[in-house]
């Protein structure tokens, strides 16, 4: 692909959603619902069509020429040797895979939203924000300049904030939006610091021939262009404190965006937004931006084993923690939110151990089945009149047949049996057998995650869909209409088939995504990537993983569907008694943060106010007092009586005349 074609196509992908956002936001309230529905979905449809063209172009390009970087325009130029930011886009396998998911799943979710927001008066605002999100996310994955990437990074946080707080008359939604924004900003700041460090320290490679004295270090490159950063990454040192620090900062940015420990608390609260938002932003795309960031910056992470190891540990830790919490949540969307956190933890683990393609494979399949689960949950929530507590549901499988079947497909895909998750998760964990810090220690944790996933996925399915209805709303539930059903069915088809198609005919070992993405991750200049398990290890890993998933599913089915296994007695034992409470209260993270951060800050603010108030007040009151006194002296002459104004006029004319006459007399 020539740079000009790349620039044109990338520009179109960016332009369509942006135009859609502007049209919906500016003209939507005037032209009405039909226009908004059309403009909002067609813009994404057009972006998806362009993405398909890009995909075909990338597939058809000769090997070694699939990555194209093009400049749209030069945005900021502070002269040679100084900051120079041009709006660059990179089209390669990684960005095109992300774009396919963003616009493809995005399109399905937009179509679904037409039905979901049917009775909401803010539909123009909704589609405007959703289109803005697609634009920002496309900017983020296309960016070939760190500044542009950070702009996209912040813009997705903005659209996430706007959409979480979409129902702004609800206090909880506004608080959740604020929490998400504040957490994201922590990540933004980390990214900006990393960018500054790179900008200052990046030097041309080869910096200095070995065994030779150089006159001095070569000049800093002073660039933030990603291809340049990657080409000269080794000038930051291999395993040096500097590159470790940079990678840890990048990882903190990724953790904030991908809801990883310790910056994860915003994601469950983000479920306050409309369900399509949860599906698109907080499951399929935005929260996986952290995975993308680490995969994109793989030349740096390859050089920083300590940072990569930390990323792997945090990812796996979050996966276990979120899986454990998901076991006892009662809000249908929160259970899925914690499962998202857990699955993204696995992706982060994968990119942490260098299995980038495996992480992106999990991202792709996860986007399908997680969007499916959320949209199906949206149908359920609609059917039971905005009830989200799964204890109030039950027995929905006979009342909402299609949704129930789709949800079952999603749950199986999530738990990793037969459908999507089976392929990507076992593939990813297989890498864990041989790679990562202290391998295979994290792999053992990984199979625990597998059991947990089976447990919570089928606890959710069993409680919400099986058994007898436990409320009037559930008893009277009925199936959603076609516009909300078709996207769910398509996503269910994708979840069921995508894995098989990509990996036909064997369910383990290399797959098409591997082959497609590996050129990106083995490009010259990057270090070693994870060692792929050979066939023997692959089979062993696959069998162990699948067995653990099945154990989890089986236990869940016995407890929550057949009710012939009661965990409460086992959990009543001392030592285990705490577990349910810990899980239900989300390990008390919110309370801990409240005690450690919020309260001290508030106390500090209150203390400062006590000290500052008198000082500042005397100041400001002094200034304003002067103005008040001055003006009150003049206020009395404004009576509103024409007579008075006329008298002033006459008075001043007389004074003026006399003054002129005196002056004339003096001049003589």
């Amino acid at each position, binding site marked *: 692909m020539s740079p000009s074609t790349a620039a044109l196509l990338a520009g179109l992908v960016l332009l369509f959603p942006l135009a859609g956002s502007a049209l919906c936001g500016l003209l939507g309230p005037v032209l009405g619902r039909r226009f908004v529905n059309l403009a909002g979905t067609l813009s994404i449809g057009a972006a998806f069509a362009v993405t398909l063209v890009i995909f075909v172009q990338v597939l058809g390009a000769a090997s070694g020429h699939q990555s194209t970087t093009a400049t749209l325009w030069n945005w900021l130029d502070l002269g040679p040797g100084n900051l120079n930011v041009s709006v660059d886009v990179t089209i390669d396998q990684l960005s095109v895979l992300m774009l396919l998911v963003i616009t493809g799943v995005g399109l399905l979710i937009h179509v679904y939203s037409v039905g979901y927001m049917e009775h909401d008066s803010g539909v123009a605002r909704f589609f405007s924000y959703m289109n803005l999100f697609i634009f920002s996310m496309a900017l983020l994955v296309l960016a070939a300049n760190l500044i542009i990437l950070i702009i996209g990074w912040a813009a997705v946080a903005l659209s996430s904030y706007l959409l979480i707080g979409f129902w702004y008359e609800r206090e909880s939604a506004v608080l959740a939006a604020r929490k998400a924004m504040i957490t994201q900003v922590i990540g933004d700041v980390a990214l900006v610091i990393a960018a500054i460090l790179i900008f200052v320290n990046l030097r041309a490679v080869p910096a200095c021939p070995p065994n030779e004295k150089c006159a001095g270090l070569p000049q800093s490159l002073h660039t933030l262009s990603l291809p340049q950063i990657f080409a000269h990454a080794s000038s930051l040192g291999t395993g040096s404190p500097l590159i470790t620090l940079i990678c840890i900062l990048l990882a903190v940015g990724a953790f904030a965006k991908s809801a990883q420990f310790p910056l994860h608390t915003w994601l469950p609260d983000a479920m306050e937004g409309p369900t399509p938002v949860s599906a698109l932003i907080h499951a399929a795309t935005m929260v996986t931006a952290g995975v993308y960031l680490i995969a994109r910056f793989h030349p740096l992470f390859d050089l920083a084993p300590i940072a990569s190891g930390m990323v792997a540990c945090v990812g796996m830790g979050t996966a276990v923690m979120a899986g454990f919490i998901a076991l006892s949540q009662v809000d249908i969307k929160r259970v899925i939110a914690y499962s998202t956190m857990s699955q993204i933890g696995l992706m982060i683990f994968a990119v942490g151990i260098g299995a980038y393609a495996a992480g992106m494979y999990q991202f792709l399949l996860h986007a399908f089945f997680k969007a499916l689960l959320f949209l199906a949950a949206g149908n359920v929530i609609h059917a039971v009149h905005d009830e989200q507590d799964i204890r109030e549901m039950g027995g929905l499988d006979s009342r909402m047949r299609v949704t129930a079947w789709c949800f079952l497909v999603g749950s199986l895909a999530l738990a990793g049996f037969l459908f999507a998750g089976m392929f990507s998760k076992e593939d990813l964990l297989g890498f864990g057998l041989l790679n990562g810090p202290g391998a295979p220690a994290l792999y053992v944790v990984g199979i625990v995650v597998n059991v947990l996933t089976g447990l919570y996925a089928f606890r959710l399915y069993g409680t919400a869909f099986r058994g007898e209805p436990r409320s009037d709303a559930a008893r009277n539930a009925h199936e959603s209409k076609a516009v909300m059903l078709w996207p769910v069915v398509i996503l269910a088809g994708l979840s069921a088939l995508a894995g098989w198609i990509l990996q036909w005919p064997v369910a383990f070992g290399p797959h098409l995504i591997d082959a497609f993405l590996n050129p990106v991750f083995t490009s010259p200049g990057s270090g070693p990537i994870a060692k792929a398990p050979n066939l023997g290890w692959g089979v062993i890993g696959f069998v162990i993983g699948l067995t653990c998933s099945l154990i989890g599913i089986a236990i869940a089915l016995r407890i929550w569907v057949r009710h012939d296994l009661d965990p409460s007695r086992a959990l009543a034992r001392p030592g285990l008694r705490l577990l349910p409470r810990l899980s239900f209260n989300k390990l008390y993270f919110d309370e801990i943060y409240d005690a450690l951060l919020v309260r001290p800050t508030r106390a500090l603010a209150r203390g400062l106010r006590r000290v500052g108030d008198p000082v500042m007040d005397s100041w400001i009151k002094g200034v304003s007092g002067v103005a008040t006194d001055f003006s009150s002296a003049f206020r009395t002459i404004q009576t509103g009586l*024409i007579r008075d104004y006329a008298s002033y006029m006459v008075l001043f004319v007389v004074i003026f005349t006399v003054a002129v006459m005196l002056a004339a007399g003096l001049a003589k």
Partner: protein
Amino acid sequence: MLSQAMFPWLLLTAAFLFTLGALGVLIRRNPLVVFMCIELMLNAVNLALVGYSSYLNSEEGQVFAFMVIVVAAAEVVVGLGLLTRVFSIGRELDVDDLDEMKQ
């Protein structure tokens, strides 16, 4: 031709009329009377203009007096229009009563 001796008297008459008008504007409360007083002031100025014109043997003063007459006519149109509006909304015709400019 005006005699030289009469000219100061003419100016004094104009000044007297002007002061009379000004006092009327400031003191009277009936807007119609205020109006008439304004006319009195304008005509006092006209008298002075015409007097000067004759005294200095130039036409400019007379031309200017015509301008003043035209402006005065226009001003009467606007002013009386305002007065009828004030009257028609049921307000008392009293300049002291119309003090909304204070707010």
